[in-house]
């Protein structure tokens, strides 16, 4: 046995037998779960159940997700606040609107794996529940929670289910100029002054369904969902009431109004703050629309390059309807003997005061000298 084989043998024997603390993975999961523990809920409308098996296995790995905050049946009825016009007013979790005072409101607040059922309102009923799941002898998970949101509508009844989805998945801003963001039964609309998606489902023997997916001001990873189910007779009247509800939607607090003329100042603030935390933002010019040359050793969100790379850096900034600034940062490089030309575009979202928030990487080019 030569020296290399002896070393390999020793390393495999000594290090290969080592085991981390049994709770290490759980501690890591706890640290990366910056949004706090969530629970698994089969709400097919959001497509979350598509990964049911994965979720079940994952839940087995996340016993910490089942905690004291588990609310087995979160349902509490309350009388709506009557408005002078015969309407009641809803204002919760940043979403406000008016609805017929004759409708019943049922508070839920049930948190189901990134989806929170806020309320049910209407003449029918709705219920959101979460119950613990006890594994059987052949199950491959330790513990779990099964959540469900059920709507019950009888003839001539309507139920509006109000939900808020806080990513993941991370849908990004609703962009009406992007037709790929729609399925064939949907269309872009405007609700409360912000882009939204409307989807109508019809069949002969099941409730008519209407769905509005709304932006959440200042949030890229969140959406409001207004899901409506109603059954004949009286469909036209109920639909008119629902459409009046949607037309009255306002966001609370109101959407910040951004002035494009402030763009250069906000870009300078945002880039200074971003570069203070990450030097890879230092190459971008603080004046939008200008280009500077620089040599970089790292791209935003990437690990360091193996070699220095000469690039040109540009900055663009635009206000968006959801009250965030969208700053587009591009680094371009030319061809050399060991690399092809290309560019990398990074999107940095800024709060109204220029504070950097979420960051999107995106490129059509291979990154030279990386990884």
């Amino acid at each position, binding site marked *: *046995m030569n*020296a*290399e084989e*002896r*070393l*390999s*043998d*020793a*390393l*495999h*024997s*000594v*290090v*290969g*037998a*080592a*085991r*981390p*603390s049994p709770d*290490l*993975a759980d*501690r*890591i*999961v706890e*640290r*990366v*779960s910056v*949004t706090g523990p*969530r629970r*698994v809920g089969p709400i097919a409308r959001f497509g979350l159940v598509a*990964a049911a098996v*994965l*979720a079940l*296995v*994952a*839940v087995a*790995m*996340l016993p910490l997700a089942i905690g004291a905050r588990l609310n087995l049946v979160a349902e509490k009825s309350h009388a709506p606040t009557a408005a002078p016009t015969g309407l009641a007013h809803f204002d919760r979790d940043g979403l406000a609107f008016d609805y017929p005072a004759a409708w019943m409101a049922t508070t839920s607040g049930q948190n189901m*794996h990134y989806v929170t059922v806020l309320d049910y309102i209407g003449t029918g009923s709705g219920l959101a529940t979460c119950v613990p799941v006890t594994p059987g002898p052949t199950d491959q998970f330790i513990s779990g929670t099964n959540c469900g949101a059920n709507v019950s509508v009888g003839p001539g009844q309507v139920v509006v289910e109000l939900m808020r989805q806080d*990513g*993941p*998945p*991370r849908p990004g801003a609703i962009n009406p100029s992007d037709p790929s963001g729609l399925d064939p039964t949907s269309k872009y609309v405007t609700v409360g002054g912000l882009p939204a998606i409307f989807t109508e489902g019809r069949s002969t023997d099941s409730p008519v369904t209407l769905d509005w997916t709304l932006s959440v001001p200042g949030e890229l*990873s969140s959406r409001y969902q207004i899901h409506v189910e109603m059954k004949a007779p009286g469909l036209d009247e109920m639909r008119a009431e629902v459409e009046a509800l949607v037309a009255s939607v306002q966001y609370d607090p109101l959407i910040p109004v951004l002035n494009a003329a402030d763009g250069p100042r906000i870009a300078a603030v945002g880039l200074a703050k971003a570069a203070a935390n990450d030097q890879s933002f230092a190459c971008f010019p603080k004046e939008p629309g200008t280009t500077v040359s620089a040599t970089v050793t790292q791209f935003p*969100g*990437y*690990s*360091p390059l*193996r070699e220095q790379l000469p690039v040109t850096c540009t900055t663009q900034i635009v206000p968006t309807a959801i009250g965030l600034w969208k700053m587009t940062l591009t680094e371009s490089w030319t061809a050399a003997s060991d690399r092809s030309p290309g560019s990398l575009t990074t999107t940095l979202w800024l709060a109204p005061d220029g504070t950097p928030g979420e960051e*999107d*990487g995106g*490129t059509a080019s291979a990154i030279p000298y990386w*990884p």
Partner: protein
Amino acid sequence: MAAVAGNLVLAARSGDAIAFAALVHAETPSAYRLALSIVRSPSEAEDAVQEAFLRAWRDIRSLRDPDLWPAWFRRLTVRSALDQTRRRPRVREVDLDLAFNVPGLEPSVHPADRMELMAGFDRLRPDDRAILALRFFADLELPDAAAALGIPLGTAKSRLHRALGRLRDQMRHEP
């Protein structure tokens, strides 16, 4: 299995914390052993693994090809482990006796020789331990070891050569 891991990476890349949690559970033992081979301290190895996963969660959106996850995450682990060694010198806590007394493990080398070899390995610089661990513990070919260290292949070759030489020196000077 690879397809499942690829799906988890894809889901995690889109921000799915549950999928990332599954990756954490799947990768933690091997990442820990790789980190341990470099830092030689169980607590520092755990810190390194934790740091590697935090970096992975932060940067996973930059990982365009999910098939590159193993190499990408290995590199984060190595980098975090080396950062640990630079951060603070600590008393090492490896329990060699415990590691040697593994049931069913048939030693092909006398335990005393193995102990001596590992003692010499422990005295190497972290960079030397890293290249040796990647080559002889993670069993990577040199191009992959170079990628994990973020160094050119030529540098990896010379570093491996020098590390082996220094290990031999350590063995010769062992009291």
